């Protein structure tokens, strides 16, 4: 059986690691072997963050080879573009629809024309989905659940049971935040059919 490769990226603090932790555990609950890799520490401080997630019957490398990701899931558009090399030619890119200028641009040390992002993404990716997770999270009243909205959207493409997602959410999220996270997951999941 084939391996499924999912690369998740974003900016430190957006919840990339929680996203991949939850999805990894859901894959395990469904009987797959799972490998998940990420880096922490200084590399994470407001910087670009990625997590590699792979599951299947037999998985060796915790890192996804270039051009082998079935899904690239991004919480910010510049980062989506940064890691495009990992995506298979027929892979699916799901990204939030906003960008955060990196610090070198903010302080005027580097210039960058952000209008090229959408143009490039549309040119280079056949299967492209924009999901305004941060906007939807604001509607729910907590911007921090953007990552779970994105997970909910991705769940439409994966063969895992809804109850498994909820079981794992319950295990990983503090009680007082559980309800809003479940709502966020469903909001993302339903966005697909809109």
């Amino acid at each position, binding site marked *: 059986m084939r391996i499924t490769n999912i690369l998740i990226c974003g900016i*430190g603090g957006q919840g990339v690691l929680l996203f991949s932790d939850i999805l990894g555990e859901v894959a395990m609950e469904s009987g797959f072997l799972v490998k998940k*890799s990420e880096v922490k520490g200084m*590399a994470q*401080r407001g910087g670009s963050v990625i997590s590699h997630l792979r599951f299947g019957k037999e998985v060796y490398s915790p*890192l996804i080879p270039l051009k082998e990701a079935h899904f690239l899931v991004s919480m910010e558009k510049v980062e989506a573009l*940064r890691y495009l090399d990992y995506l298979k030619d027929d892979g699916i890119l799901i990204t939030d629809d906003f960008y955060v200028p*990196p610090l070198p641009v903010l302080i005027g040390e580097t210039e960058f024309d952000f209008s090229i992002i959408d143009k490039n993404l549309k040119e280079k990716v056949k299967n492209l989905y924009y999901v305004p997770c941060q906007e939807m999270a604001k509607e729910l009243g907590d911007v921090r659940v953007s990552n779970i909205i994105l997970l909910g959207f991705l769940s439409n493409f994966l063969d895992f049971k809804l109850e498994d997602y909820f079981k794992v959410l319950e295990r990983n999220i503090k009680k007082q935040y559980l309800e809003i996270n479940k709502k966020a997951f469903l909001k993302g999941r339903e966005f697909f059919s809109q």
Partner: protein
Amino acid sequence: MAKALLSGNEAVARGAYEAGCQVACAYPGTPSTEILEEISKYKEIYCEWSVNEKVALEVALGASLTGARSLCAMKHVGLNVASDPLFSSAYIGVNGGFIIVTCDDPGMHSSQNEQDNRFYGLFAKIPVLCPSDSQEAKDLVIKAFEISEEFDIPVILRMTTRVSHCKSVVSLGERKEKGIKGYKKDVSKTNLLPQFAKRRHVLLEEKIERLKEYSNNFVYNRFEKRSDDLLVIADGVAYQYAKEVFKDASFLKLTMVYPFPDKLVTNICQNYKEIIVVEEVDPFIELMVKSLGFKVKGKDYLPKFDELNPDKLKVFIKRDTKEEAKTDNLPRRPPALCPGCPHIGTFYLLQKKDYIITGDIGCYTLGALAPHYAMDTCVCMGASITLACGIEKVNKRINDGRPIIAIIGDSTFFHMGLPGLLNMVYNKCDIILFILDNETTGMTGHQDHPGTGKTLTGEETKRILPEDIARACGVEQVYVLNPYKIKENKKIIDKLLKEKKQAVVVMREPCIFLKKREKPKEVDIELCTGCKLCIRLGCPAISYEDSKAKINKIFCVGCGMCIEVCPKGAIK
């Protein structure tokens, strides 16, 4: 059997629990930190944040001498700090099983070098086990305790970032209590006076010979026969990458890399014409295999720097695999100080000046980068103060009048700054020492230390303050400032920089992750003149759009530093 998705570090903790470990010590350091954080969840194990790695190794060794199974964990460079007792511990041996976990960081995701700690095994004569995933990490902790007790020797468990921070499925077992044998006097074993140490060295060499036989028969040194032509030898996570790429090759997976299983390797290698060694960083296995007389392909193909990945291994199959990159010339997103980080307040006052600024290890090392450019050096834990001492002595002789500033964080100060402070006072160095006290060990994810008043398990303890230590050492000018009060601080700091006399300045304000956010600040665009003074703070919450400053409400924590620097009162 119950199973869980565990990181390598969580699996080490689980292994320690199941093996009946009684004592665990560490100083936090990426990528090793989570080992002790996880162990602290098991009430059966005494655990502590020790003040540095040397202390951690010695506390764990002391516990082992009582007959308790014990463990210490550290990042690769931590083992340099702990190397003095490491070498002695090989001579002394153990009573209860004793494991030293070192987490190396190929790729330097959060480190100052890429040293390969497998060589410590060879150097200190201590067996080295290299797990390649979480299940092995757990199993090998249990095995390492057994080896340690059977051979009366410490055992090094060598992890790397991609083993420590990769999650995979692990089967969980029950804890098996081992009991505590109790401390027994045995001076000729535990006191390395020369006459005793000579005997201990002979014994150690004998143990290593016996361990070599053990390694030859060690089940985790595993031969996987598939091809008659190509043999791949690999250890650690490199084995996983190689399995991904060389699907039809035979594999010799090495797990105990020291003592090196020479007979096993010889027996297998002699049947193969083509041998590839895949390992990260240094050619450790390659050197060993070559010393047995075999030709191998290894570091003449693979880089000796940075971490490996499956793509890099493709050089063995096809040279020059570079494909055209799809990604454009994107602006980098380097790690940066967080919005509202109290360190920003210190660096704002020191930025872009012709001061000599020696730095240290922590989040604040980012002060070296744009926009502050306020840190010249980062060498190792504690080196800020001592490098400054050396610079000061020479600059006085050549009348270089630039102020000399040393910057160190609170946790780093307790770790290895104390000897530097003593040296600075004892040898009369006119250094302005900034201790950036954010009341935690920030970069590794907020661990307690002697200055927080809390232990690893959250117990209250004496809080030791850096300013009290400085005064006790005889420093005459000691200030404690709030880094957010930029205007007030400027007067004091400017005076110190002008006088250039010995001083200690503690900049105290908790890390933003340890306190409640205040209401985000806003820019009144009628009043903002676009002077960019607030941009110079380097706060990621502030940007410059349409010739005006703009504050990102999601990022802003409301610290108010921008209000301090705005000359027009445009921020509220």
